[in-house]
């Protein structure tokens, strides 16, 4: 459990960090909270030549309201989100997700940006990001670009971030209270075998629902959403619609859950998430 030798840089600003990435290219890895990178390095599955520690770039760590949206800096820790009064009122889905990640030690160090960029298929954040239609502001050598959540999670362990880019912040909308995150955790790791995030808009009779853990990447359950669009969100309507929660995906299968069980949990948890969100109105 000893990493291979590497060089370490701790830039003070985002520009310095980007310059280091530009210089070292694929040899460099960005270190945020370290909860994915460091275990991979200890197992020597990842052997970067240069580790660029962005942990001291304070501009990346913030939660604020801007232009009617909420901006969450990429370095904001799970715990900071879990305990944010602003988010509790304006976007309660985020603190709910944060509180279900790992344990206190993990939440104190792990960051929302690091988790999203890592794009673990069982990570908790991607479900919430998709359900909220979050926007990712990415800084690169030629300035910033914005990536929609639906384009951000590309594949297993692959996000839209390029090796010379750094995630700067995430925009999420202000929501009502009718949101929920329901998770069925893998017993050993605490990662999601299935996790369902949902945003219910009762005024527009519309729902957004996204699932993580089930497939190679998090996804929006489009068939569930279309079934419920314009419906009364009754228990019967939810029960019928959520039967489609795993439609069109190829569920993962491993020693912790077969594909069949994952698909089943997707349906059960989708139902529970919608019922829970609906009950919060």
């Amino acid at each position, binding site marked *: 459990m000893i990493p291979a030798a590497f060089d370490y840089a701790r830039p003070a600003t985002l520009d310095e960090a980007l310059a280091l990435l530009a210089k070292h290219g694929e040899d460099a890895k960005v270190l945020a909270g370290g909860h994915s990178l460091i275990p991979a390095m200890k197992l020597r599955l990842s052997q970067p030549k240069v580790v660029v520690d962005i942990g001291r770039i304070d501009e990346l760590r913030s939660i604020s309201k801007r232009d009617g949206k909420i901006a969450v800096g990429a370095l904001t820790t799970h715990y900071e989100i879990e305990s944010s009064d602003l988010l509790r009122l304006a976007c309660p889905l985020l603190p709910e997700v944060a509180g279900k990640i790992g344990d206190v030690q993990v939440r104190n160090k792990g960051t929302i940006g690091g988790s999203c960029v890592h794009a673990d298929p069982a990570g908790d954040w991607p479900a919430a990001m998709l359900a909220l239609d979050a926007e990712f502001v990415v800084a690169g050598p030629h300035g910033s670009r914005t990536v929609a959540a639906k384009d951000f999670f590309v594949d297993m362990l692959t996000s839209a971030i390029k090796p010379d880019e750094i995630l700067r912040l995430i925009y999420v909308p202000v929501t009502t209270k009718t949101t929920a995150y329901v998770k069925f955790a*893998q017993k*050993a*790791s605490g990662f999601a075998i299935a996790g369902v995030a949902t945003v219910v808009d009762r005024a527009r009779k519309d729902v957004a629902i996204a699932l993580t853990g089930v497939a190679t990447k998090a996804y929006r359950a489009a068939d569930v959403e279309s079934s419920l669009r314009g419906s009364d969100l009754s228990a019967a309507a939810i029960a019928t619609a959520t039967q489609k929660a795993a439609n069109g995906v190829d569920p993962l299968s491993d020693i*912790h859950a077969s594909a069949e069980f994952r698909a089943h949990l997707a349906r059960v948890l989708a139902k529970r998430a919608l019922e829970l969100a609906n009950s919060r109105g």
Partner: protein
Amino acid sequence: MSTAIEEPRKAEARPEGSQGYFGRAMKRVEDPRLLKGIATYVDDLKLPSMLHAEFLRSPHAHAKIQSINTDRAKKLRGVVSVFTGADVNGKLGTVPCATPLPGGKSPDHKPLADGRTYFVGHPVAVVVAESRAIARDALDLIEVDYDPLPAVIDPEKALEKDSPLTHPELGTNVAFTWSLPGGDVESAFKEADKVLKVRMIHPRLTPMALEPRGCVASWHAGDSALTLWTSTQIPHLVRTLLPGLIRIPENKLRVVAPEVGGGFGSKLNLYAEEVVISHLAIHLNRPIKWIEGRRENAAATIHGRDQIGDHEIAVRNDGTVLAIRCKAIADVGSYRQLLTPAIPTLTGIMLCGCYKLKAAQMEVTGVHTNKMSTDAYRGAGRPEAAYIIERVMDLVANELGLDPVQVRLRNMPEPTEFPFQTATGLQYDSGNYQAAFDKARQLADWPKLLEERDAARKAGRLFGIGLSTYVEICALGPSKTMAAGGWEWGCVRMEISGKVTVITGATPHGQGQETSFAQIAADRLGLPIEDIVVLRGDTASAHFGRDTYGSRATALGGTAIVMSIDKIIEKAKTLAAALLKSTPEKIEFKDGKFFVSGEGKNALGWSQLASEAYVAKNLPPGFEPGLEASSFFEPPNCTFPFGTHVVAVEVDRDTGQVKILKYIAVDDCGKQVNPLLVEGQVQGGIAQSIGAALMEKTVYDENGQLLTGEFMDYAIPRATDIPDYVLGSTETPSPSNPLGVKGVGEAGTIGATPAIANAVIDALSPFGVRHLDLPFTPERVWRAIQGKGGAL
């Protein structure tokens, strides 16, 4: 068992000679150093000019090593040398098995792989370097050309004619066979109204001690002597076994088990790494440290359980269980470790559980597979036995439409029938199974629990209640039944100042004997507990010992201390008689004072007598100076603790998740020296058992890759998985030792798993589920509800 707890060695006014430590709930004297982080584990040792070792391990379950090239690794700056099997095996003995059984074949266990590798994690080479990081870097520079071979993974398929062979040179995968006739099985089956059949699988488990293994070996060239610090349960057995393997005399080896961060049986072994590191420290004439990583620990430290049993049970329609006949396969893994073959034999002899079976027969086939060896893991064969017989009791009740409580009561021996002779040839020393059984149901409020279940079921909830009784065999055990000595040793030294040093050979590794043995000694000597120090874990001070496993330390080690104290008291009486101008027969000893009968005023205390005994100016003629005695206790029999556990669970019908709602345990471990330590052992044991029941299983894929090699994939219970326990006890003293104690280290792991299993299966009974194998993971339970098989 809510007990008032006393601080250790508190300066509360406790006059010299105060009695009554035995039986008191006292906090451990060990705790402050452990909680403050100032205790010394192996990895805390730093010796001058110490080197560090890392092992290269096989990534294949079975492979031929075509070539190994260590040149690049040897050239890395800071690497002292690299050794392979070809370099060291010829100079070393083979890793020992103390309990071989006939009927099959097993290979010589060379310390490093010898041309072939037999499991993932098999040590192939070792790098010795100036730092651990350099040693680790060098591993990546060793080039091994492996030719992968078919791996034997499934022990049942391993017995098929066309199976590949774990060790091709042996011509068979059968490691041993063992059978226990266990009475007249044939006639018992003839008497039966019904014969039930059931297959039960005990999954492979990984012990996962918090501290992985590790050792430091240091060669003292001037004395031609070696010191080995190792994270082990058995420093004395290591000292017995290791010298022959590394070719030094026993009296040139000192073994120290410093603080040990958990063993659970996984450190009841002599491992290849300890042999290699000891040898290389001599060869290189420099101290060497090796610390096992977590993934190495999961792959290359022994696993537990892994039995498959086909059982037939002969019953009468009234619920009398007449006999059981078991055919079991034990997955040995690649090699026999120290006690590997003995583990399923413990299952066999304990098959009767708390019941009066007329006959209990077991046939075991030990099978080699290309996996890590199995050996003793907390309970060691006994959890399997308790699980089998307690599942059988519920199956019988279910089959005959009887109450599981009544079926158990019908088959229990009465308290008057003890010592009780079992069909398997054991003599249970003492017992009152009904008392513990009744008390547990009282604490559980059994009638109310049944009502709760009825109400829950009416409401459509999956609610289950499970019971298990258990009896276990502890204080192993008379020497004639053991591979190398079942005695225990203890020494008591009255220091010149009147302080007392107690030295035990029953090396604790977390059980708290520094506290409980001090309690025993303080009472017996009539001294304040603050005056007692207990030494353990170093063969240089604890001259003899058989160490701690099988819940033996207090019954055997505690008794050896009592015997030594009694010798000192006798000697002190002679000295007191001379000083008081009387005769030894007239000297009384009470509350730490020696006095002439009826003349209590002129009493002598320990400090006066100790001073006289060592200053030695006023000794009577022929009186040998000093006050020190040591003793070997050879027990007449093992001890047989028992108890009853009651569990209520609820199953989520949509997800298969099991929630433990209530947990009640009544354990009878005989007399309790320190109820707080007893409770700690029971709590920890149940927690490990909850792991085994609900989440733990070691998984290899069909190629022999270990899929549960770290905590990301091998689940162990966390604090939030543990319910509030209701704990109680009954007290049936053991006649096998003067303290009346029995042992409690494994009780929780033996009693709890079957109780949880019975509760879960009861919860699933509305779906017609009769039996389900461990562990009750959500998917397995969900599949049972769906009427589907499968799931890992």
